[in-house]
C-alpha cells in the first residue's frame, strides 16, 4: 500500500516537472507582460513536433533536439511579442485574452490541417527503460525529463536573480513605470520574457517526446494544468508555479491511482475550484484587498 502511494507520488513528481516548465512560462509572461498566454500549450505542441520531425527525419534524439527547439521557440517568442503582443498591450483585457486565445486556436487547427490528427510518437532506446529504486519503478525518460526540467528552472532562477536582465525583468514585473524610469527598456524585457517562456514550453515538448505522443490538441491538457498551477502558485510567482506544479502532478497521480483513470482532470478542476473558493490569491499570495 505504501509502495503504491510512493509510486504514485514519484510518478506525479516526475510529470510535475514538465507541468512546471509550462506553468513557469505562463506565470513569467503574466508577471512581466501582464497578459495570460492561452497559447502556451500550443508552443509545447510545437516543441513536440519539432523534436518529432528531427527524430524521424534526421534521427536526432529528442533530448538532443532541445538544442534546436529551445532557441527556435525563443525566437518565435520574440516575434510573437514584437508583432502581436505589443499591439494589444494598451488595449485592455478583452483584446489581450482573445489574441492569445485566437493564436491558440490558430496553432491547433493549422497543425491539424497540416499534419492531421494522427498521434506521432518517437521510440528511443530509453523509452521503455526504467530504474528500480527498491520497490519503486522510475521511467528513465520521465526521470531525465524531470531532471532537465529542474535544471532549467534552476537556470531561470539564477538568471532572474543574478543577471542584470533578469533583475530588470523582475523590476518590470513589480512596477513597469518605475522600471522604465530606471532605464529598463520594456520592449526588450517583454521580448525576453516571452522568448524564455516559449523556450521553456519548447523544452517541455522535446522532453515529452520520448514518452508522450504528439498531436494537434496535446497542448490543451498541459495548458490546463499550467493554469491551475499558476493560480495555485500565485500569479506571477515563478517559484510558486514550480511548487504548485509538482503538487498538482502528485495530486493528479494519486487521483488516477486511487479514484480512476480519467479522474485526473477532475482532480485538477477540484484543485482549481478549491483554490478559487478559499484562497483566490494562491498559496503565496500576499496582497489582500
Amino acid at each position, binding site marked *: 500500500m505504501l509502495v503504491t502511494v510512493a509510486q504514485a507520488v514519484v510518478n506525479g513528481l516526475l510529470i510535475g516537472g514538465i507541468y512546471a516548465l509550462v506553468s513557469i512560462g505562463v506565470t513569467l509572461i503574466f508577471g512581466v507582460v501582464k497578459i495570460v498566454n492561452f497559447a502556451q500549450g500550443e508552443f509545447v505542441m510545437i516543441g513536440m513536433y519539432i523534436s518529432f520531425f528531427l527524430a524521424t527525419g534526421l534521427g536526432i534524439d529528442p533530448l538532443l533536439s532541445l538544442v534546436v527547439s529551445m532557441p527556435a521557440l525563443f525566437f518565435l517568442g520574440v516575434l510573437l511579442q514584437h508583432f502581436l503582443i505589443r499591439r494589444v498591450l494598451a488595449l485592455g*483585457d478583452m483584446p489581450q485574452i482573445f489574441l492569445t486565445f485566437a493564436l491558440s*486556436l*490558430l496553432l491547433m487547427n493549422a497543425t*491539424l490541417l497540416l499534419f492531421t490528427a494522427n498521434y506521432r510518437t518517437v521510440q528511443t532506446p530509453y523509452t521503455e527503460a526504467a530504474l528500480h529504486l527498491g520497490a519503486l519503478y522510475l521511467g528513465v525518460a520521465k526521470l531525465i525529463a524531470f531532471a532537465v526540467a529542474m535544471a532549467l528552472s534552476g537556470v531561470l532562477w539564477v538568471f532572474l536573480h543574478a543577471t542584470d536582465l533578469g533583475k530588470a525583468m523582475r523590476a518590470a514585473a513589480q512596477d513597469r513605470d518605475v522600471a522604465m524610469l530606471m532605464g529598463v527598456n520594456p520592449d526588450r524585457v517583454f521580448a525576453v520574457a516571452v522568448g524564455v517562456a516559449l523556450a521553456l514550453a519548447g523544452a517541455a515538448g522535446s522532453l515529452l517526446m520520448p514518452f508522450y505522443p504528439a498531436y494537434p490538441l496535446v497542448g490543451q491538457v498541459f495548458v490546463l494544468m499550467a493554469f491551475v498551477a499558476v493560480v495555485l502558485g500565485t500569479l506571477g510567482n515563478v517559484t510558486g508555479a514550480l511548487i504548485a506544479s509538482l503538487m498538482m502532478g502528485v495530486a493528479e497521480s494519486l487521483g488516477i491511482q486511487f479514484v480512476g483513470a480519467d479522474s485526473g482532470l477532475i482532480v485538477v478542476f477540484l484543485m482549481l*475550484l478549491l483554490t*478559487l473558493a478559499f484562497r483566490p490569491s494562491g498559496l503565496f499570495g500576499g496582497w489582500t484587498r
Partner: protein
Amino acid sequence: MDPVTRRRSGRGGLWLALLAAAALALPLVVSNRFAIDVFIRVLLFAFIGVAWNLMGGYAKQLSLGHAAYFGLGAYTSTILLIRFGVSPWIGIVAGGVVAMAASLPIGALCFRLRGPYFAIATIATAQVLMLVFLKLRDLAWGAEGTTLPNLGNAPLMMQFDGKAPYYYIALALLAIGLAVTYGIERSWMGYYLIAVGEDEDAAEAIGVNALRVKRQIYLISAFLTALAGTFYVQYIYFIDPNTAFSFNVSVEAALVSIVGGIGTLWGPVVGTVLLEASSALLQSWLGGGHGGVQLTVYSLILIAVILWRPTGLIGVLASAYARVVPAGRAQAGEAPRDG
C-alpha cells in the same frame, strides 16, 4: 450611450421592417435544404452570440464556458422528453430554469476572478459538466449519448417535417434575444452593466452593486443560452456530452460578438453572418474532410479584428454606411456605442 439622442430615426425603423420582412419570407423563397440549414445555423449562433454578448459584451465578463448552459438546456429538455414524455416546449423553459440555477453557484465561484482567470474558470466549469455527463449513464446516457425518438411531424413535441418550422423557431429565438438586449440597453440595467464592464471599482464608488449586476445578467444570459441548447438537440435529433458541452460552442458564442461588435445590439448578428458565411463558402469550396479549416479561418479573422478593429466590425459597417448614405441627423450621442 444615451437614449435621448438615440431616438430611432424613421430610417432605422424602415430598415428593421425590411429586414424582418426579408427574414420572414426567406423560407418561402429558398428551397435548397443546404442553404436553409446555413440560415438556421446563422440564426441560432447569432442568438447564442446575443446571449453571450449581454455578459461578455456589455458587462465585459468574458466567459468561455457558455457551453455549460447550452448543454444543461439540451440535456434537461431531452431527459424530460425521453424519460418523462414531457414536450420540449415545456422542456425548453425548464432547461432555461436549470441553467439559471446553475449560473448562481458558478458565478459565485468565478466572479471572484477578474479578466483572463475568470475566462479560465468558466472553461473549467464547462469541462467539469462535460465530464460529469460523460459519467451519468443512468440518467443521461453517458458518453454515447442518445438520438431523439423520431415522432415524425409532431409540432407539439417540437418535431417537424421540413426545415421551415425550425427556421422560424430559430428566428423567434433571435428576435427574443435581440428584444431582451434592446430592453436592457435602454433601462437602468444597461447603464449599470456598461459601468461594471468599463470600471468595476468606479462603478461601486457610485453605488453600483457590481456582484449583483453580474449575477443578474448571468442569469439572463444562461437562460437564453439554454434555450439554444434545447433547440439544437431538437434540430439534429442527437445529444451527447461532447456536442452539448462543446468548447466550440463556447468559443463561437464569444467569437461572433467580438468579431461583429462587442457590446452592441447587432454586433453578434453581423459577426455570425460573416463567420458562418465564410465557413459555408469554405465548405463548399474545399468539400468535407478538412478538419480544422473552419477554426483556422475563424482564428485568423479574430486575430485580424483584434489587431485592426478591436471593437468589432460593426463600427466599420456603420461608418461605411454613413459615407454612402448621408445621414439626416447627426448621431453624436450614438458614438460611444459603436466605439
